[in-house]
């Protein structure tokens, strides 16, 4: 595909993790096993390239559950397209980051 964004294996893992429902930073760290110094900059890059979008959770929801609000990430249309291409490039991606445990409360 012309103009397709090519991702490194690490970035593809982070994108796959977000797609699988691990939608905040620490959850992505847990499921991928990558350190914080890798995951957070990778998420900033993905957001800069408009592959993911971030949104803060409502304060009222977090207050009701007695915890600080989280910053959630979700895939954009371009992100989904790029992830499909990355899955073809890295066939084991879906096995490395399964979608069973969803990190959303």
């Amino acid at each position: 595909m012309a103009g397709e964004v090519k991702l490194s294996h690490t970035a593809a893992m982070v994108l796959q993790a977000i797609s699988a429902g691990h939608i905040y930073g620490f959850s992505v760290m847990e499921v991928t096993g990558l350190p914080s110094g890798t995951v957070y900059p990778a998420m900033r890059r993905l957001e800069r390239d408009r592959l993911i979008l971030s949104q803060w959770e409502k304060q009222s929801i977090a207050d009701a559950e007695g915890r600080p609000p989280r910053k959630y990430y979700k895939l954009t249309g371009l992100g989904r397209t790029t992830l499909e291409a990355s899955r073809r490039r890295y066939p084991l991606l879906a096995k490395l980051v399964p979608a069973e445990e969803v990190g959303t409360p």
Partner: protein
Amino acid sequence: MRSDEVVPSNPVHIVILWAAALLVPGERRQEWLAEWRSELWYASQKCSLELASRLGGRWQITAFCLGSFEDALWLRRNTPQSEERETLHLESPQHCMAFLAALAGFSMVAAFLLVLGTRLSISLADLYYGSLILIMPCPVLPAITSLSLGEFPAHSRLGAWKGRLQRGIFLTAKVVFIMLVVYCGMLILACNCVTFPPAVFLLFYGMLGGYTVALRWALNDQRGRCPVCLHLLTQPVALGARSRCFLGLNGTGLMCPQGHGFFHVPESPTSWFSTQRWLCLDSSYRGLS
């Protein structure tokens, strides 16, 4: 789960995050810190729930926090430089002077209070000889720092005595203020290290280095300003190719934000372009800015 069931954040972890936050550009710092503090809360919770050993759990959280430096550095590298520069507001000569004057004033007050507080028995002779030692590196400066400010063609706006006087006063004031800051800083250090004999030599070389850096900054700042309005030049553009340094220009071109002219800074001196050169533009170019 209630929040009070969670292990409270160690102050060391908070300090690590605050230290990393200093690297983040100002406009993004608050949100960045909020995200990391929130993530730290969840990391602490996870470690307590997994019944990790106390030391091992804390180390894991510390390693998690140390990752914030890489994130902060990434943000710093990928934020446009212009946004950072705007925070200091040194583009206009008035703001630059006000900032340096405030810094010099603060340094003088701090040095005065420290001398008054720690050396009540100090005599005027001590202060005089001490000041002489601190000022000694000044005559060395012209020998180790280039004083050239570039080539300026004869032009009505640049050649007028009023303009030259204005540029001279601005440069002199900058040099005086910045050297005053270095002087007061070294005086504060001298007061604190007065019982340590080798500190005198360290202070002497520190003063020499401090003055050199200060004067170089003042001269570089002066070179990077429009000679007409004294605003910092903007929009740097790379010109030419590095391999063509015989008769071609290889350097950077900058422009006055008010359209007074272009400034060419060569990457390396060549036979026809050895130093910075100012190109005046007439009023018909003002629309470009």
